[in-house]
Structure formats: C-alpha cells, structure tokens
C-alpha cells in the first residue's frame, strides 16, 4: 500500500549550504595542518611516502625464500626434496649431490648441487618451510620478491637464495642443531669412547 513520506524540513542555514561547507573545510584544514606542520608522531595519515617509507610486514608474513647457512657457510639443506614434494605449485627444483670423501663436509653427505625456485610460479603458501626437516628454507625475510621486468630475474638459484638474509640480518637459522662433524656433536663414537 502506497503511503506518503514526509520530507524533512530544511532551515535557511541548511538551504544556503554555507555553514556546512565551512564545517567541512574546517575538517580538511585541520587534517592538512596536522599532517604537514608539527611533529611527525602527531600526524594521523593513512598513507605513507612509498617507496621512501615502507611499513613492516607482520611477524608471520611469508616473504621471499632464503636458504640458511651452516657455521662453515655451506647450505643447511640436505637436498631431501621434501620441500619440492610438498610444493603444490611445483616451483622448486633440486639436484642432490654428495660431498667428496676428501671434503671436510663429507660428514653431511648430501647437499643441493642445484637449488632453484621459480618465484613467479610460487604461491607463497609456506608448505616448503613446513616440510623442511632441517630448517634450511625459511620465508622470514620480511620482504617480498623485488619487481623486475625480466622473467629470468625471478628464477632464484642457490647462490641467490643463500645471499638473502633473514629479518634479523643474519644468514643462520633460529633453530640450530648438532650435525655430524660438529665439534660439539655429543655422544659416543669409536674414536671417542668404547
């Protein structure tokens, strides 16, 4: 059933628009002076001056991958292929190899001769980090993949991945562990005891 709606009454001040326009300009100027004059901490802008300024990503942000280092600078990765197995985008390619018998790192046995991540294919799900039993691959870099105009620049090889530091600026992992060959490696062996 149709019924009539009563129009709200308008005063002369409303009708002239002047008062409301001045009120609105007041807000604009308040913000303008607040954000341009005076100390930076008082500013209440929603925007930042990118790229000069950037915001920190949250603690758990999954950034570009990195490969952590051992104390001797070799990759912690043992090329077990768990990350490439878990990867739903199939963007990780690894070729395992063995340290030669005369290499001081022979005790680690296995290492990645080739470790490549196609960052264009990666969906940043973090499954590789979850799957890694050695904490060798991490996404705690706090940064994303830098932009580029060439596809090849997104193919990150082992050297590139090892050159990216973590958020704390180091190349090591937060979860160190004893590894064969470490002087701190506990337990018995034929040389030490029995």
């Amino acid at each position, binding site marked *: 059933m149709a019924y009539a709606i009563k129009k709200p009454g308008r005063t002369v001040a409303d009708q002239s628009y002047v008062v409301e326009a001045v009120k609105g300009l007041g807000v604009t100027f308040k913000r303008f002076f607040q954000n341009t004059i005076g100390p930076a901490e008082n500013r209440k802008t929603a925007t930042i001056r990118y790229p000069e300024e950037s915001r920190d990503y949250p603690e758990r942000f999954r950034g570009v991958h990195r490969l952590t280092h051992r104390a001797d600078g070799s990759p912690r990765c043992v090329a*077990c292929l768990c990350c490439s197995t878990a990867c739903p985008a199939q963007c990780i390619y690894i070729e395992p190899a063995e340290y030669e*018998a005369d290499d001081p790192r022979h005790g680690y046995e*296995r290492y990645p001769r080739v470790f490549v991540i196609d960052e264009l294919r990666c969906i940043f799900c973090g499954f590789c980090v979850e799957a890694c039993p050695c904490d060798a691959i991490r996404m705690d870099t706090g940064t994303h993949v830098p932009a580029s105009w060439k596809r090849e620049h997104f193919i990150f090889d082992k050297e590139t991945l090892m050159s990216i530091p973590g958020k704390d600026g180091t190349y090591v992992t937060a979860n160190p562990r004893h590894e064969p060959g470490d002087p701190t490696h506990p337990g018995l062996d*034929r040389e030490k005891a029995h």
Partner: protein
Amino acid sequence: MPTFKLDGQEIPFEPGDTIIRAAWKKGVEIPHYCWHPGLSIAANCRMCLVEIKSARPMALPILAWDEKKKDYVETTKNKLQPACQIEVTEGMEVASKGAAVEKAQGAVQEFLLLNHPVDCPICDQAGECKLQDYWLAHQKKLKRKDTEPVHKPKAVRFGPTIVYDAERCIMCTRCIRFCDEVVGDHVLDMRERGNKNEITVSPGRELDHAYTLMTEHVCPVGALTSKDFRFKARVWFLRSAPGVCNGCATGCNTWVDYDPRYQRVYRLRPRDNEQVNKFWMCDAGMMTYKRFHEDRILTGRVRQEGRVVEVPRDVAIEASAKVLEKSQRLAVVFSAQHTNEDNFVLGKLGREHLGGTALYLAALSPESVPGGWKGDAILRHPDPNPNRAGATAVAGGELRSTADLAADVAAGRVDAILSLGWAAGESVEQLASLANVPHVNLSSNIGPLTQVATVVVPVATTAEASGTFVNAKGMAQQFQRAVNAPLGIKSAWETLIEIGKRVGREIAFAKLPEVRAAMPATTAAVAAAS
C-alpha cells in the same frame, strides 16, 4: 591342501612352510625385517612375533596387577613366538594382531629405533624404508629414550658399489646371509655385540662379487646404499614398469623405476619370478639401465663421401628406402638384442617383401661385452644376449653370424644390408667390409653395426617400447614400456613399417597385439601365456 587359521582367516600351506611364508604366499604380510623369502631364517629382528593359540602354549610366569586385590598376583602369559621360525601345523590358530602382539611389535619397533639416527632426510631409503612403514603401522609414538644415540661409522665404503651406514643398520643380517647363501662368498660378517654391533667386510676383502647391488636391495632399511643410485632420485617420485633384463639370456624379471617428470630411468630392481630369477639380479644386469640413456642415437645418420652426417629421421628413412629399393641380393640381419616383434616385422619386410634370402643374427659375444662377460651357476648365462632364442625362432631357424656376413660381403654375395640393433660380436675393424655395400641399420644406441652402416635410423630402446624376449630356457616374457621415446622416435617394428611404406610395401600392422597375433605359433603362444 591343509590349512591353518591366521587372525580368523583360513590360510592354506604346504608341509614345511613357516607361518610367515604361508601368509606371504597368500599375500598376507606379517611385519618382519630379517626374514626374506629367498634366504634362510635368522629370527633375530623379533618383529614377526605372533601368538600361537592352539597347541601347547609356552607359558611365561609373570606378575600382573589385580584390580580387586589391589596387588600384584602371580600368573602366566602366552609366550609370543617368531612367525618366521615356527612351522605351521594343520589347524593351528595364530594371532598376528591383538593387544599382546601389538604391544610386542610396538616395543620391538621402539627398540630397533633406540639408537637409530632417524636421518630420514639424508637417507636414501626414505620412502621405501621398513622402519618408516612399521613405525607408522605399529609404534606411532616417540621413543622414550631421551639421551644421545650411540654413534657408529657413517658412509663406510664397502666396495666399488656399496656404501654402509652402521648407525642405520638394524642387524637383520640379510646382507650377510645373501652373500653366504646365494652368492657363496662369505665377504660380510658382524662384529661387536649389543648396541655396538655392526656389519664388516672380511679383512683384506671388498664387497666386490657380481651380486653386490643385491645386498643393497635386500637391506630393509637405509644401511646399505648403492653408490650408483645414491642421492640421484627420491623413490616417491618414481614409477615402476615391469621389464625384462637386457643383460643376458637368463632374462631376469625387473621393475624399471623411472621418473615420469623427466622420462628418465633411474634404476632396475629384481621382480620376483620363481621360474627365472627368484628374487635376485646381478650387478651387470641392474646397470643395463644406463644404456637406455647413454650413447643414444637420436637423429638419423647418413654416410656421405665417407663422413657421417646427422639428418632428420624422415630423411634417414627416405635414404634407407632408396637403398632397399635397388637391392637385388639383400642380407637381413636379425638382432638378439631386439624383441620378437621387431625381429618378426624385420623378417616380414626383409624376406617376404624385399626378397632377402641371406639371414644373419647380430649378437654380442662374451668377449665383446665391455669389461667382458662370464656366466655363473647363479643367474648369469654365458650368452650375453637377451633374445637370441626369440630372434632365431622368429626367423625360422638357425641364423649365421655377423662374421659370416662380413665374409659374404667381401665375396660379393650381398649387395645391400638391412640390419637391426647396434650389437655385434665383432669389432668395427672386423666388420669393416660391411661398409662396402649400402647398409641400412635401425638402432637405438651406438655400436659396431651403426658405425659401419650407410644409413642409421633411430629407434626406441627396450625401456621405451613394449615387447617380448625369449630367454635361454625358451620362456617368452613380455615387458611394458616405461618411458616415452624421445620426440619422433618410434619402436623398431613401427619404423620398419614406415620404411616399408616408402618402398611401396604395405605391412598391415597398426598395433603390437596384431604383430603378436601374426607371429609364429611357437613364440606367440608362449608370449601370450607369460
């Protein structure tokens, strides 16, 4: 056949069978590490403990908590016995499940893992390791020992092919028993006791007999690893196709393990066949997979003014058609390396359509195998060709050797050659006269025959095509294609039909079963049966 009851299921057995063997024959697995159907019984892993309910139970006095008396009371429990060692008797009742057995299995599993390094990411056995499988099936909880495990030597070189890791070893002694019982070479043994126990090689020796890779294959955990396969691939990426070994006339049944992503074969494993190879294969046989990828011929080759020029496959087929059209006295060379189907279509084209009457067989001789070839009483047949019997049967009688062919060419009795395969018992120098007549060769790899040919057409290897071999015992065995042939390359019989079309001879086979159906009854009948 008498039967016994395993977990309520009636299982038939032959007199003398142990519980585990009878169950294994029926396809029921009782968890085990040290037992292997082809080896003697050691009963040292204790993983196969079962409860025998019938017969006189072996009672163990124990103290059990009595809820009513609020005290321990003296009672007995049924002693569990290893299923690998106890012979089955008629009507026996066995439980391989249930609280008592499962507790024992979990405890044994925990014990075996007490000092295990659990370095599964590094270990090559990950993905096919019984410790992993049984942990999930029978333990599923962490070990209670929280001290550092006992460390033992890692990555010890046992010989040219095998690396040993003492920490991962569970002392099942399968490798020792394999060397003793199958190979008859007591090169491995154990030393020390308890948690210092490890496998050693006899002083002054290396693990270097002809079956060393089998020790790796029988190892249920990652203690013995093959240097060849080590760190090359992960088994969960591999698929398996049933194959037949190309190494000799025994024709051992294999699993061809390949990576479907890269279309590459990574290893061969023995496939159980009681009549042919039981559970075993020799090192040389397991290494034949390398030939699938090494020394391949991937393009056509045509000899022009003494130089070999690589040409597209189509051009090579065109050139071979020209050679075959002109021929009056064609020599047809069958191959002991190629399948019955390939040889059959070769005969069809060479003899029936092109009128070739001089028939030969290209086969390796023991001396021509790189590194030499010697047969033995275990598996290795003195003849290093997988299909001499099949090729001879398909050709319909005894064939002359490639040495005879060289003599016939020198005497001018032949004006063109159509040959299959790369193999020959003679060297390139001995076959030099073959280069004097136009020679069409279909081959997958480089070998003496390809080097003296005028035109070489590339064909698929046995991993890239299905087919049938007949072994020295006269058994025809089929194998399946594992990987795809490189782009454009087809199996030899398909290529021969293409060449036939170019010379205007229609051979009406479109599919492999059609070729098999047309083959002589003797080979075709056995082929169908296997």
